């Protein structure tokens, strides 16, 4: 371990991908769903045509479990490779059941069953096995009634910190989905949004992965805009939204653009009674990964244009190929106060279920 790694970070890592294989979920699935997997070899639909991004698909090549299982599928190995050497205080699990149950086309019953099985597996296999790990409630959000039932079923678990929604082509801010937000708010759960396979190129897959991956933040911008202008945070004032794995450097542009549009077009959204950027600063937080390489000066310019250094939280995105190291991803020389905010204080302030950590140190 290098000198700089010897300093304890007190890290709250806001994006760690644990992974379930279907056989892991079988003990948690009722019939007939279990038989559809064992007998019919049911697989979720897959869309992304790229298998070439890096040396091991979309995972770190060194994160494959030594016994051959896929990256992220074994707690002991995650502890050995990530949690122990870095010294995580908290890791927030964001899943890898892709595509998300909320993104499945049709057969919402199967999506709902998968989400429930996943939650039970997540609690048994991860949350109850390592005190550092916190989780996300998976739902089949395209069926809000069943999604609310699932939030009611597992949402009160003390280590479930958020309801996870994929960023794809659904506009979650629309009133149809508001019962989900109402249920989340009732259980002190925030909303976490993570892109799944969003159609960032006019609904098509561009020729190259590099094109698609470069523009993922545009999908995040779509849903931020949708959530603000549809008045979700005016209707649910205690609700907050963590935007995961899209970075944050696009937000100065978007906040300025939304504020300008609001001056021109307020009449269309009269339920919004304050600047969109104020809503964003009060109700949203953005995970850092994948960080662009920046100098300290460039990084601080972005922070200044965000209008707050309290709405960004560090994330590694382990075990994905574009993992960010907490020791090397941020520009060197950042002030210690700012690093404390990025590494832990901002996440602690964001998640109500981490409030017991707020008074330490």
């Amino acid at each position, binding site marked *: 371990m290098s000198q700089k790694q010897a300093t304890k970070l007190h890290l709250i890592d806001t994006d760690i991908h644990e992974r379930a294989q279907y056989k892991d979920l079988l003990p948690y699935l009722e019939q007939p769903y279990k038989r559809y997997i064992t007998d019919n070899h049911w697989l979720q639909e897959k869309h992304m045509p790229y298998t070439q991004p890096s040396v091991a698909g979309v995972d770190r090549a060194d994160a494959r479990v030594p016994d051959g299982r896929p990256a992220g599928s074994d707690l002991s190995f995650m502890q050995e490779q990530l949690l122990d050497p870095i010294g995580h205080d908290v890791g927030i699990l964001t899943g890898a059941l892709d595509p998300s149950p909320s993104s499945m086309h049709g057969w919402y019953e199967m999506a709902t069953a998968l989400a429930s099985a996943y939650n039970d597996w997540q609690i048994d296999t991860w949350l109850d096995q390592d005190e550092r790990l916190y989780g996300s409630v998976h739902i089949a959000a395209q069926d809000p009634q069943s999604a609310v039932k699932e939030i009611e079923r597992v949402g009160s678990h003390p280590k479930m910190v958020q309801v996870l929604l994929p960023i794809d082509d659904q506009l979650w801010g629309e009133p149809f989905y508001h019962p989900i937000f109402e249920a989340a708010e009732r259980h002190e759960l925030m909303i976490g949004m993570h892109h799944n396979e969003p159609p960032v190129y006019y609904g098509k897959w561009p020729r190259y992965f590099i094109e698609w991956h470069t523009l993922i933040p545009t999908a995040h911008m779509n849903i931020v805009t949708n959530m603000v202008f549809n008045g979700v945070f*005016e209707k649910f004032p205690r609700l907050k939204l963590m935007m995961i794995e899209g970075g944050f450097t696009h937000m100065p542009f978007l906040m300025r653009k939304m504020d300008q549009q*609001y*001056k*021109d077009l307020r*009449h269309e959204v009269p*339920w919004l*009674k304050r600047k969109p950027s104020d809503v964003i600063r009060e109700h949203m937080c953005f995970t850092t990964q994948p960080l662009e390489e920046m100098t300290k000066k460039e990084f601080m310019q972005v922070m200044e244009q965000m209008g707050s250094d309290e709405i960004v939280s560090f994330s590694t995105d382990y075990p994905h190929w574009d993992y960010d190291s907490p020791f090397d991803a941020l520009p060197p020389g950042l002030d210690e106060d700012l690093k404390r905010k990025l590494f832990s204080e901002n996440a602690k302030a964001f998640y109500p279920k981490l409030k017991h950590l707020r008074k330490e140190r």
Partner: protein
Amino acid sequence: MQEVVCQKDDLQPGEMMESTFGRHSIVVCRSSNGEYYAFMNRCIHQGAPLSKGKLCGAPEPTDNVGEYNFVKEGDILRCPWHGREFDITNKGCMLANEKLKLKDFKVMVEEDNVIVYK
């Protein structure tokens, strides 16, 4: 300094017209309750001629998502370019940000004359 900018009957409630006050182009508005107001005929945003816009109403702020309560018909001046809304009965304040307002002028009515003064 004072100047007759129009006649009372030139405007019905909810109407506006361009006029001049000294060297300034101004917009004279008559609100829904019959009062007269005058503003610099130049939007504070990018200088559009406000008299070419609309004197209309606006959905008032609401606590209910999806609800439109259209109020103040004849009292809201909307810029002809970007559509920004200004309340003529509230010193020309912008609805989206009350800290921003149009340049307004004092107005009085004497007999049939609408007079701007300072």
